[in-house]
């Protein structure tokens, strides 16, 4: 099940502000708590956090919302960010790197995802393969990319730990696929 959460609407409801900027830690905390409540109520497999109508995102607020939702585990829900502008994404990537975290960014038009944050070239290569070709076990991905099995397994486990891919019966896949 997929749930879309309009972040600008959550901001207006949680903070009662006339502005559409995600700034300050206290705002971030209020928005995060509202998102956590929505996730607890809906228990979706995938939650799309839609930033389309949001103005500025500062580092402190990005830390309180995105980093803490990811660190918290979000009750097992896969989080995806969508509708981000370049400058907003930059602030979020800065925060993700600070915590050694990663997140999925969803492109509404193409339907594709891409991981952002502190990731290696191997992480990106494995993710791209899962997205382009489809789910794979560690040995299957190794064969597909030309890696050895240990390298493939290590990268897939890391992607799963970062909650960028889901794993079912040893098969790894992109959550929205």
């Amino acid at each position: 099940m997929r749930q879309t959460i309009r972040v600008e609407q959550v901001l207006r409801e949680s903070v009662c502000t006339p502005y559409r900027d995600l700034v300050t830690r206290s705002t971030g905390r209020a928005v995060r708590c509202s998102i956590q409540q929505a996730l607890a109520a809906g228990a979706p497999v995938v939650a799309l956090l839609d930033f389309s109508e949001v103005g500025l995102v500062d580092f402190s607020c990005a830390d309180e919302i995105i980093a803490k939702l990811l660190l918290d585990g979000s009750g097992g829900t896969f989080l995806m960010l969508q509708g981000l502008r370049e400058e907003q994404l930059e602030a979020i990537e800065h925060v993700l790197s600070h915590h050694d975290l990663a997140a999925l960014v969803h492109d509404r038009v193409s339907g594709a995802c891409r991981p952002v944050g502190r990731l290696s070239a191997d992480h990106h290569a494995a993710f791209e393969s899962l997205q382009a070709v489809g789910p794979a076990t560690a040995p299957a991905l190794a064969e597909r990319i030309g890696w050895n099995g240990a390298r493939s397994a290590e990268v897939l486990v890391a992607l799963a730990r970062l909650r960028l891919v889901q794993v079912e019966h040893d098969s790894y896949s992109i959550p929205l696929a």
Partner: protein
Amino acid sequence: MSRVVEIPASLDDRSFEQFAQAFALGSMTDRMVFDARAAQWASPFGLLAMLTAGQAVREAGGPAPAFTVPLAEEVRRYWARTGFFQHAAGLFDLKGRLPRVRPDEHSDVLLDVTPVRASEDVHAVVGKIQEGAARILHGELGLEAKATMGFAMALSEACQNIVEHAGTGGWVAVHAYTFRRRLGRRVVVIAVSDAGVGFRRSLEPTQARRFGDRWGDGAALEAAVIQNVSRFRDPGRGQGIAGIKRYLTRWQGKLSIRSGTARIVIVPDWDDDAPMTEQLAPFPGAQVQIVIPAQEGAGA
């Protein structure tokens, strides 16, 4: 008898030290006169420094200092246009004739002197600045359009230092002007100042032991600005100043923070300021200045 604190004719982050020395010469509960009659100009940093001194006096329980306004009509008009007198009236006993001015939407005052006490104030500042910032940064300084967002982010993080760490209210102002002496180009300057606990007292409980004998205002600024340390144990803290530095690196900007008796500067190529100065005259709270210059070839 009142103690006279002379306001330098041109009050900016450098001549501020003269002002700070005069202010520190006695107790904050002394009867004082801030003499600005000879003032010809003040940067946003200078305007906020005067308000911060007034705020510190009030919070120390001292009598409201007298403040003799500049004799020059155009200086009084400019200071009035920045909102300075409106806030000074609550802290000083203003002496002299004050002009009535109408707000000018297209002036170089991007953000007039604005109090910052709580998170809502930061929202209001960020909401208010964006249109004017886009006009100046993109239109006059030749920065890419996306620089406006980073600028507002830097402003937001600088203001949040007051809300999160000062323990009291503070002020913010943003002006654009031509930086003739050091750069010869247009700049946008953000000034943020508070009369709060300062960096040393804020970080002392968690950092003093680590620095040992070196601990002081300078070490506290080094911890916060260079090492991105925060008083909070939350590992996500300390990203605000790191984010400001990142933005300034991209646009050749300058960051200076003065707190207590020390001043730290992230010095861009175009400037020759000292990266760290210690043993300055003590001044309450923290004073932040961010300077974004026009890109070369843009509005000189």
